[in-house]
């Protein structure tokens, strides 16, 4: 199901380097699903966190500028993969749409840009898949169902809080529904909507490790085979750093982590190279091969 509404793709800083496994799998999948998109030619960092000060305007320039770029491309929707980017762009968009005074001040300040009045819609890929493809259609396009794969779907914070931008507001199980469409089996676990520690892994690494340990204990208790994520910071805190964090857990069992887009690409039967599984650590690749979701030997 292709629509002719123009769709801009906003990558975010991390997706071209450390999280190219999140990006390339996604873009391959979008093409395979027949969704036309256009990467923003010119974009800047969104700011990663939405400024929570009522009297602050300068920190809203970064996300609003990107919305202007999407409008300049003739798009009415901007899609993003990174949870943090999704959060900032959505909230900035809401601010512009709801606060006339702030909108005017921002537009007046950015004399070098055209005015922006909330013309673009911000969406996360999970929402896009639900709305433009639909779970049934997605299921019908799956070539390699992830049968038997028990997954812990980690929402984290920025996809679901505050309520004004929650992707699971209208569909409380959007992430789980996505994975069921791929044939996988989401397992419930208490930490699904808790925080991974976020930027504390830079500011207070010890406290961040404690937080991550709590999440990983919960995942372990659920019996999941794999952890599924949407955010490069969650992946860093729970995936990349897992080795040192497991030392804080008794009877710890390493658990492979994947971006939701990688599982999407695998289920759609796309070339594994798109997924850059080497960035996920050995356990991830091993799991996929052992279950024969991807060929054991290179094609």
């Amino acid at each position: 199901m292709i629509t002719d509404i123009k769709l801009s793709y906003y990558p975010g800083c991390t997706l071209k380097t450390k999280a190219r496994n999140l990006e390339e799998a996604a873009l391959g999948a979008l093409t395979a699903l027949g969704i036309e998109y256009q990467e923003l030619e010119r974009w800047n960092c969104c700011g990663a966190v939405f400024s929570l000060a009522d009297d602050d305007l300068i920190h809203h320039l970064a996300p609003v500028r990107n919305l202007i770029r999407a409008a300049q491309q003739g798009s009415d929707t901007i899609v993003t993969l990174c949870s943090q980017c999704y959060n900032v762009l959505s909230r900035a968009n809401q601010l512009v749409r709801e606060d006339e005074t702030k909108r005017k001040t921002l537009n007046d300040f950015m004399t070098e840009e055209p005015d922006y009045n909330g013309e673009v819609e911000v969406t996360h890929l999970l929402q896009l898949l639900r709305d433009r493809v639909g779970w049934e259609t997605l299921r019908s396009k799956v070539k390699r169902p992830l049968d038997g794969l028990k997954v812990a779907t980690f929402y984290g914070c920025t996809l679901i809080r505050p309520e004004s931008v929650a992707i699971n507001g209208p569909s409380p199980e959007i992430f789980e529904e996505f994975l069921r469409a791929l044939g996988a089996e989401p397992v419930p676990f208490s930490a699904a909507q808790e925080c991974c520690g976020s930027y504390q892994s830079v500011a207070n690494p010890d406290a961040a490790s404690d937080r991550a340990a709590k999440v990983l204990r919960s995942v372990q208790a659920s019996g999941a085979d794999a952890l599924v994520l949407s955010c490069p910071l969650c992946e860093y805190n729970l995936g990349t750093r897992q080795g040192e964090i497991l030392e804080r857990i008794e009877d710890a069992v390493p658990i492979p982590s994947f971006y939701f887009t990688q599982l999407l690409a695998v289920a759609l039967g796309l070339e594994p190279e798109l997924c850059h599984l080497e960035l996920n650590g050995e356990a991830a690749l091993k799991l996929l091969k052992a279950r024969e979701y991807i060929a054991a030997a290179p094609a």
Partner: protein
Amino acid sequence: MGVLAEAVETKMISVYIMGKKYEVPETLTIMKAMEYAGYQFIRGCGCRGGVCGACSTVYRKEGDYKIYSGLACQTVVEPGMHLTQLPFFPALRAIYEYDRIEATAEAIHQLYPELFRCVACNACTKICPMDVEVLDYVSALKRGDIAAAAEISFDCIQCGLCSSRCFGEIPQYHIAQLARRLWGGKIKPASPHLTAMVEDIDAGKYDDMLAKLLSMDAEQLKTAYTEREMEPAMADETWKPSNTDGLLE
């Protein structure tokens, strides 16, 4: 009987240099106007040709709050201009050994973590006297696109104005310079012609020609220059000089 050249009266205008009012001819550049007013440049003056970045100037126009920037040697004065110079900006420059750095985004991020303080306010782009899209290259650097950063920052003359206005206290122009150095020296494929030329030079191919030139006196040099063989204006690509000793094979 000769024709006397008509005395052309140059209109004088008022400009404010560091807050003090001066009357200067309206046709002068800021740099010439400051010298006309009696200032002598021992800093903040370089090539006088718009490429060295020494004479960066910030100014206002009469009654207008907006801040403008320009190079003093290239910008003509306007009536009611209020100006001052920024001969140097003390932006932090990381210390590194070029030969030891890997040409990766991570290397740049490690040397300049302050890069991540950028809030995309665009003050840097707005102040740049060379119209470099500074925010665009900072964004490229944050996402690790060294090639794009090198390309976008190409016209940068290292004047430091961007850093002086930066909300995040980032030394944009130093980081861009590192990106260009890494791009040019370590990422971009080496041109085979350049490599061949350097080999020729090292092998001494041009030593005799240079020695000959160095032994000439002023008159001989002048003659050699005026009598040099020049490519005709409408020659096509097959034209060659009569002596091809100096050309690459």
